[in-house]
């Protein structure tokens, strides 16, 4: 594993780039979520599964919101 500390700026740059890409692709991830995702992916999580999870969570939250709206 390469040295982590000196690469802090590189890391920051990378995250910026990724955020930009994410924004381009309209993925709907904010910075924190994105960083979590990056960490998960780096640890070897299946991106397909992760993506499905995220989508599901979003839907769940949406539906809950709409039901809340309807209900209230």
């Amino acid at each position: 594993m390469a040295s982590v500390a000196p690469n802090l700026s590189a890391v920051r740059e990378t995250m910026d780039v990724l955020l930009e890409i994410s924004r381009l692709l309209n993925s709907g991830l904010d910075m924190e979520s994105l960083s979590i995702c990056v960490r998960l992916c780096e640890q070897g999580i299946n991106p397909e599964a992760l993506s499905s999870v995220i989508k599901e969570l979003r839907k769940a939250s949406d539906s809950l919101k709409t039901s809340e709206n309807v209900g209230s």
Partner: protein
Amino acid sequence: MASLDQKSPNVLLQSLCCRITGKSEADVAHQFQYAVRVIGSNYAPTIERDEFLVSEKIKKEFVRQRREADAALFSELHRKLQSQGVLKNRWSILYLLLSLSEDPAKPPTGYVSCPSLSQALPRDAHSTPYYCARPQSLPLNYPDRTQSAQSSGSMGSSGISSLGVYAMNGPTATPPIDNSRTQVVGDSLRQQLGSRLAWNLSAVPPSVPTSTSKGLPNSMTRSVPRSRRDCDANSCVEISEASLVRDILYVFQGIDGKCVKMSNPENCYKIDAKIAVSKSLRDTVSRLAELGWLHNKVRKYTDQRSLDRAFGLVGQHMSIVYLLYMQLQVEDDQGVNLGVDSNLTLRRLLVWTYDPKTRLKTLAALVDHCQGRKGGELASAVHAYGKTGDPYMRALVQHILSLVSHPILNFLYRWIYDGELEDMYHEFFVASDPTVKTDRLWHDKYTLRKSMIPSFITRDQARKVLLIGKSINFLHQVCQDRTPPGKMIAASKSADSPKDAAELFTDLEGAFQGKIDAAYFETSKYLLDVLNKNYLLLEHMKAMRRYLLLGQGDFIRHLMDLLKPELVRPATTLYQHNLTGILETAVRATNAQFDSPEILKRLDVRLLEVSPGDTGWDVFSLDYHVEGPIATVFTRECMSHYLRVFNFLWRAKRMEYILTDIWKGQMCNAKLLKRMPELSGVLHQCHVLASEMVHFIHQMQYYITFEVLECSWDELWNKVQQAQDLDHIIAAHEVFLDTIITRCLLDANSRPLLNQLRAIFDQIIEFQNAQEAMYRAALEELQLRLQFEERKAQREAEGEWGVTASEEEVENKRIRDFQETVPKLCTQLQILTHFYQGAVQQFLVLLTTSADESLQFLSFRLDFNEHYKAREPRLRLSLGSTRGRRSLHT
């Protein structure tokens, strides 16, 4: 800015859940559990970890959305990412972002399908119980989804089975998830990629039982009856484009769809007339349905032919069809995958199916063309189809041709290298006749089946192929020679793949011809070697010449000498063993004894059929026994020809012999008979006639020996030495025999000539008889006179009267009698001469008008001093005019 510390995935996951749903950690328990389950079950990614692919995909997506600037920007960013090298799994995050970007939860800009489609969706969605049954099963079907997304790589499986792979996409509810989610599921479906779903649903064969499964969420059961009702309504139903699309997709496989059915009287697919569909849609559907029709056609053909063994290409055909179909599927699928807003309209189908349709059309046309043919004919038909300028079609036909010719090539190689022919369906162009026995193997057993010769194999090649196999079989069976010629085995036998077949047949000048030629040379050379060394073919040919064609002069002469006293007897008194004994004696006494015993033992005497009045001369013949492989060259017909020629030559020889005797007699007796001056006229006539005859016979002999026999033999020998295979030898030999027979006047055309010649020969025999009689009488007379003179001298020596008056009287009377017989002899001779000359003149006339040049030259020689021309007006016409006249007649 979050720090990249190493937290455990679970923690991360939980914080992600909180983040996205915006709830506290306690509330997201369900979701978290679900997330964990999902992640845990799908740990291994099913797609390729190819960063390049993903980035390409992203770019394509941008382009599709007409955001080229963004695409460029993304490229830039990606490059930066790569150069930074911080991330290890770039592809992972990129893929994640990409898949998240497709999320329809965000209102996508392009998500617009035609209203009918979106309306239709829920109906369709709920009408398929197959889908409804799904919640019970797998939790998540992402692997299937992504698998189908990547199915462009997998073309091996058949089309129908791959359709079965099309499972549900979208997250379905897992059992633990409570019923509150079922609503979500229904809603999510509604919002899901509409066309994709319709696609998946359409993949389900309509034969799935329509009974719904248990545990159906209430919301769905409610909508089921409604949808069912709608779809089955007959009149004036607004058929959605999606259902039409679905039907079309069924039609592509040859199955009737709900609305588009096969109408048999017109043999085409049509939309059910009861359904109201706009005209343009109808047209489009018809055009698409054509594909299904073509598919049916090809399928029917291949099914029919699947029983024939030689049609391994059937499977190939089918795989071609499925290949096209798979491509179609994949294209559809990719079109579907590419984006949310892609919808599977009929128009898209039209465009996508254009290419496969042309291919299928070609196939169908090919099928039509090939109806009812098999084997080599089929190959010819397919080959004929390849003569087109369109490179695409040519490639397709070439491919099919290679598959079709593969079994033919197999046949060919087996035949060439092993001589084996296993052809149950009579598809190869070499036919074997099982009823033929070994002795006729070479000539009759194997023939070319001309209709089965593929058009890319020339006649010459086919002939060579036939010859090679025939030679091998001949070696095996007739010569009992099973040793495989070494080089033949070394020659490659690899024709195991259709690709080889294709290469060979398309490269006609090169490898194929070379292979055949090589095999041909090797086999034929070996066969000839075997025949010559083991069976002494050429030796026997020479022996035939020596004995049957009277080549061995001293032997024949001696034989004739020995046989003469035997053969003058009537034919019925002859015994074969006597004659054979004489033959043996002759052999031993002459040079013939130095021949190899192999040859001598085949020499034999043969007595022809006896007609009444025949002398031995008429029935005697030599014979030469042949058997085994030699009999292939010297067949029965050949042997009978030889015997006929022998007969003729023997007769001519006999004439020569007779004349020699006559001449001998004349020479001997001339001096003796000088004392009888009254005979001198007769004798002179005899001499003259005899010399005419001698001249004639000499010329005939010359002609026969040199012009006919020697020349033909020389030709034959040259050809045989240069022969490359047994067929050449047989042909040369037959030509030889034909020439001899024609020139010896033995064929049907020369019948008059031959008759004339026979007449001449008869005259000669008569002359011989007459002369002999005359000589006998003359000699007797001479003897008596001499005796008289002797007695007279003796008596005078004793002192008595030499002769008494009575004796003298008797003597004189006798002399006078004798002298009176002389004119009779004279006239007899004259008549003989007249007949003879008449016969010769006739013969000459016939000769000059004959077509054969050598016979014409014979006439020159026979009449060199124009002796006959003077007497025969017909001969006075010059040769040119006769030729002209002849050509007028002929």
